[in-house]
Every structure is written in structure tokens, then in C-alpha cells.
């Protein structure tokens, strides 16, 4: 059978460096850091006291207060980013077949703060369980896709993917396949995360994943730099409208790019550490190229997972070199987490948007905060250090890897 083609027709972003796509992209291109001291709780006793928080988000501008209080922040972020994406796609909700519109969302954790708050409240009492009836629905990760469907009446396939920091890419790949098969005409995909909480910072501190560069938050996320010391936790959401090509054409939609393939694998190695030879990353990238039916030399830019951890960064590059050979030194590579921080399950969402805007603008966003070369990293890689680079691009790849050994890769191409 012939697969249907899948294109991107709407984008929405709520990020630490911009509360909409235009601001996000401008700040990516300009190399702006979203990091700063934590404002959401008193972090003075935590090893890490900074994060990439959202700034100036007025939830009730988008969601009535009565509905908003029954949702965790990660669901607020999902609805806010999707609001922009739906408007951007210029959808006529009265004429499309909403039974054939799905929502597949990614979140690594779900409503962490809701869980935290409720249990702290419980622990303060005498043991009598006075659990809020909205506690479970605020917390569970699939609330995000459920709430999006209720807001717009989208009655197609609906669920949330959970594969830690690969969550959104898994959501994108699932939607790609449903649309290819004709099971859906459109799908809202994306991811959201709101883990800048005591449990989130404390938990990632405990497993030594976070940077502890408290004296200089804005330079702490420094992928590929010799002195990188962990990732910087970010929060927010990205939302994309995926649509079957002819469906998009027939309604005269603006088409950003074609989603041509996705690849997945598992390290089957360790719960937090990546495979030492980057085996899982290699297999997933190879799977994505095969799925897209293209050669390694077709890729112009890779938005890497590149979280700024000592062991993760070089292993991903090792896998890229193994798969792309000499071409790995010709393509552009960058980690936009140097600016946004690591949005965990939403990372794939905001990075897919970075890739699509890079294609649209023919500009590679930089890896900021490069100060010192690392001997472990081959200097022949073009890691797009510190300044955006103009480049003629047709095809771009976005990598995401998660705790648990999950790897998921997506490839976008300019529509020919």
C-alpha cells in the first residue's frame, strides 16, 4: 500500500525563551539563555538553585480560572501552546471532520507538583485522608491530551506517550504512522512538562543529572564544553499540527515542512546512563533514515539531544560519526538546550519546532555557552558554537533520548 504523506501546518510554543513561536525563534537565533534563579519555591537548600522557568505566563488569559484550577501546570502549558498551534494552522473547526483528528501528547512525568502538594498537605494532617477529588485527574499524564480534545472536540485517537525525554518524539512518530495509514486526517502532537518543583529539582539532583553552576545559571547549560556539569531543568510546551498532505492542500493550509520519517530503539543497557558506544542512538537514527527512505548525506542539520551532561554528549556524537561517517563533519549540529534548558518530555516538541523554523529561515540556531574545547570531542564536528549559522538546508533531524534507554528520532524536510 502507498503511505499518505504527512506535513506540519501549525506550530505553538511556550518556552523559557519565549511564550510564542516568533519570540522563541528570535531568541533561539540570537542565542538567548532562559536560565535564572528558581522563583517557584525556596531552593536555598538544594544543590541546584536555578532552572529555565517560563516567564510571565497568565494562565487565565487562556483557560477560565474554574477549569484551570482542576489542571496541573503541565496541562495549562499544553493548552496554551496548542491554542497558538490551532490558530496558526488556520483551522475551520466547523468544517473539518473532528472524528478524524487525534491528539497524541508527550509528557515525561505529568502533574508532579499536584502530587507533591497533595501529599504534603496530607502529611500535615492527622492521617485522615482528605484527598482532593481532582487530585488524580490533575496528576495523570494523559490529562493533557484529554483536555485538548475536550476544548476542540477532536474525537480521534487520543493518548499520552511516556518515554521520559523521548516522549514527544514518540508521540510525533505515532501520529505520523496513524496519518500515513489514513487512520487520522490530522493530529495535534507535542509535549509539555512542569517539573521545576521541589521533587523535580531534588530528584534530578539526587541522581546527579543537574548542573550545579549556581554562580552563573545562564552559562550552566553548555553542551560539548569541557566544563559541562549536567543539564539545566526547563519547563514549557510545544505543539504541532500534523496533517495529511492532500487534506492540507485542499484547505489551502500553510505547510511548514514534511515529516518524512521517525526512528526508535532502546539501549537495553542502563536505567540512566546511555550506552557507552551510543548503540541505541545509532540504531534509532539509522531506523529514522530507513523510514524516511533517505541517505545519511541527505541530512543537513541535527538538533541533538545534547543535554550538557559529561557522558551523554560525547556518546551521541560518537553515534553520529559512526552512522554519518565523513558527512558528520559536513552537517551542522547544535543543541538548543543550551538556551531552553532541558524540557524533559517536552524537549522533542520545542526542538521539532526549532528544526522546522531553522528550515523555514535557512538558519541553524547555535549551541551557546561554548568556552573551552573538550579533548573528548572531535574538533571536526561543526557544533554551531555560540552564533547561529546561515545554511542552505533541505532535511533536518531531531534527536531525543530518555532515561530508561528510550531513543526516538524524527526527520523533517522542506516540501519539494
Amino acid at each position, binding site marked *: 500500500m502507498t503511505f499518505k504523506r504527512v506535513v506540519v501546518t501549525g506550530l505553538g510554543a511556550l518556552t523559557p525563551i519565549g511564550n510564542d513561536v516568533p519570540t522563541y525563534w528570535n531568541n533561539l537565533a540570537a542565542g538567548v539563555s532562559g536560565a535564572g534563579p528558581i522563583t517557584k519555591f525556596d531552593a536555598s537548600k538544594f544543590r541546584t538553585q536555578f532552572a529555565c522557568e517560563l516567564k510571565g505566563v497568565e494562565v487565565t488569559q487562556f483557560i477560565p480560572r474554574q477549569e484551570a484550577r482542576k489542571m496541573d501546570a503541565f496541562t495549562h502549558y499544553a493548552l496554551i501552546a496548542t491554542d497558538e498551534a490551532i490558530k496558526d494552522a488556520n483551522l475551520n473547526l466547523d468544517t473539518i471532520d473532528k472524528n478524524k483528528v487525534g491528539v497524541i501528547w508527550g509528557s515525561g512525568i505529568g502533574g508532579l507538583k499536584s502530587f507533591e502538594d497533595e501529599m504534603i498537605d496530607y502529611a500535615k494532617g492527622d492521617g485522615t485522608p*482528605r484527598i482532593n*477529588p481532582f487530585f488524580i485527574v490533575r496528576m495523570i499524564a494523559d490529562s493533557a491530551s484529554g483536555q485538548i480534545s475536550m476544548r476542540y472536540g477532536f474525537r480521534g485517537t487520543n493518548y499520552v506517550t511516556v518515554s521520559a525525554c523521548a516522549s514527544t518524539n514518540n508521540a510525533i512518530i505515532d501520529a505520523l504512522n496513524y496519518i500515513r495509514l489514513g487512520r487520522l486526517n490530522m493530529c495535534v502532537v507535542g509535549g509539555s512538562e512542569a517539573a521545576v518543583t521541589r521533587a523535580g529539582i531534588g530528584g534530578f539532583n539526587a541522581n546527579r543529572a543537574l548542573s550545579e553552576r549556581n554562580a552563573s545559571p545562564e552559562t550552566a547549560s553548555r553542551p560539548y564544553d569541557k566544563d559541562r556539569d549536567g543539564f539545566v531543568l526547563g519547563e514549557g510546551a510545544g505543539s504541532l499540527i500534523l496533517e495529511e498532505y492532500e487534506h492540507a492542500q485542499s484547505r489551502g493550509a500553510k505547510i511548514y515542512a514534511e515529516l518524512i520519517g521517525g526512528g526508535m530503539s532502546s539501549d537495553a543497557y542502563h536505567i540512566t546512563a546511555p550506552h557507552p558506544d551510543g548503540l541505541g542512538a545509532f540504531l534509532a537514527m539509522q531506523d529514522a533514515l530507513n523510514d524516511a527512505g533517505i541517505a545519511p548525506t541527505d541530512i543537513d542539520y541535527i538538533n541533538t539531544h545534547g543535554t550538557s551532561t559529561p557522558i551523554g554528549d560525547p556518546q551521541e556524537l560518537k553515534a553520529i560519526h559512526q552512522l554519518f561517517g565523513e558527512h558528520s563533519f559536513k552537517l551542522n549540529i547544535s543543541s538548543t538546550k543550551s538556551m531552553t534548558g532541558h524540557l524533559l518530555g517536552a524537549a522533542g516538541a520545542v526542538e521539532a519546532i526549532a528544526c522546522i523554523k531553522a528550515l523555514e529561515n535557512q538558519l541553524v540556531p547555535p549551541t551557546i555557552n561554548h568556552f573551552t574545547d573538550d579533548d573528548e570531542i572531535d574538533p571536526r564536528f561543526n557544533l554551531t558554537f555560540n552564533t547561529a549559522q546561515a545554511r542552505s538546508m533541505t532535511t533536518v533531524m531531531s534527536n531525543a533520548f530518555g532515561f530508561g534507554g528510550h531513543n526516538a528520532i524524527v526527520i523533517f524536510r522542506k516540501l519539494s
Partner: protein
Amino acid sequence: MSDIAQKVKNIIVEKLGVEESEVTPEASFTNDLGADSLDTVELIMEFEKEFNLPIPDDEAEKISTVGLAIEYLEKHIGK
């Protein structure tokens, strides 16, 4: 208005997002104030917390209006 009645009103206004003027003694949580079944459970729980008074489920089911809530609480608090 009693102190209890005022606190009950405040909780209802806060949780259901209604105007205080709508919170009349006759007002039904579900029919007049837009509450669904979970909202009602939440209201009862908030009353229990505010007044530190356990409300048994069979009693809670009968509390369907603002007036019934105030009446129940005034009867049981401090006893």
C-alpha cells in the same frame, strides 16, 4: 450572617467561581451553581477541612444546597 455561613459562602465562591450574590440559601450546587459531582465532593471536603469536622458520606449526600450546608455545619460544629 453567622461566621459559619460567611465561611461557607467564601469556600463556594472560591471553588465554584461564582458571584457571592448567587450563593443564596436555596441555591443548589449542581442545578444553580454549575457544580458537577466531583465539585460537590470537593466542596464537602473543603467544609471538613475548614471546620475540622468529618462529614459522613450518607450525610454529605443530603447536602445539596447552600442552606443545607450551613444548617448542617451550624448544628454539628462545637458539639
